């Protein structure tokens, strides 16, 4: 899918939700691409600075929620001189349709990008019907 868009900095959007987090720090909404293939729904989100063990994936009541935390300990002793972006945890949730097999969700993290593979339930996959 060719797309010649100029690459520019996306200002981080803060999470606005009616449920407050218990951690008193800013949470951001990670830029996410969602696309569908024949047998799965792919959710790809950018989580720069987040390590595998700091991501919590949860599926409950048909809602998939992602909570990804930054390890601020790495910034101990660092004093800002000049900044262009803020640093914080990430959170986002999506309501899953019943097309998704909620038992078969897998995830991969590479270079700060989390790719979630949500396999479609067997009934939702396109089926060829043979004509006799």
């Amino acid at each position, binding site marked *: 899918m060719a797309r010649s868009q100029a690459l520019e900095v996306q200002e981080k959007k803060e999470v606005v939700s009616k449920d407050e987090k218990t951690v008193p720090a800013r949470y951001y909404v990670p830029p996410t691409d*969602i696309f569908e293939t024949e047998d799965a729904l792919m959710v790809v989100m950018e*989580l*720069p*600075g987040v390590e595998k063990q700091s991501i919590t994936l949860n599926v409950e009541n048909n809602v998939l929620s992602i909570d990804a935390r930054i390890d601020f300990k790495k*910034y101990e002793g*660092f004093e*800002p001189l*000049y*900044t262009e*972006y803020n640093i914080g945890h990430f959170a986002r949730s999506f309501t899953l349709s019943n097309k998704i097999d909620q038992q078969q969700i897998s995830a991969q993290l590479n270079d700060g990008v989390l790719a979630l593979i949500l396999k479609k339930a067997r009934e939702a996959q396109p089926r060829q019907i043979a004509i006799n």
Partner: protein
Amino acid sequence: MATLFPDSFGALLQFQQALESFRTSGWLGAGPSAGGGYPPINIFKKGDDVVAIAEIPGISKSDLEIQVLGKTVRIAGRKAVAYGDKASLHRRERLEGRFDRAFSIPFEVDPDQVKAECRDGMLALYLPRTERDKPKKIALG
């Protein structure tokens, strides 16, 4: 500058507020900053060192090129987002493309001592001063 206690309640928010306040800092000065704003960089002081940290999610070492000359640092590369032909797009928020950004810092960098770390979509550049550019202590007679 407040010291950080990572386990302390509220210290996180303090750090974030500090980052916010340094957005209008004139530290980077009016040097030649060519090539657009991507990737976004934060510059920190850690003891005597200066560290530049850029957010480059989805960009691996092989897609990245870093050059240092005098007081200028150049970060160039390509951010690719590819999903294959058989995909039907529901939502598109990630951006992709080539980037080539140069920024100047207020001291000369020793290119042989620069350390670059690229991990989890973050690039950290440790920028040490050249011997010549290090402030010398003046002894009081």
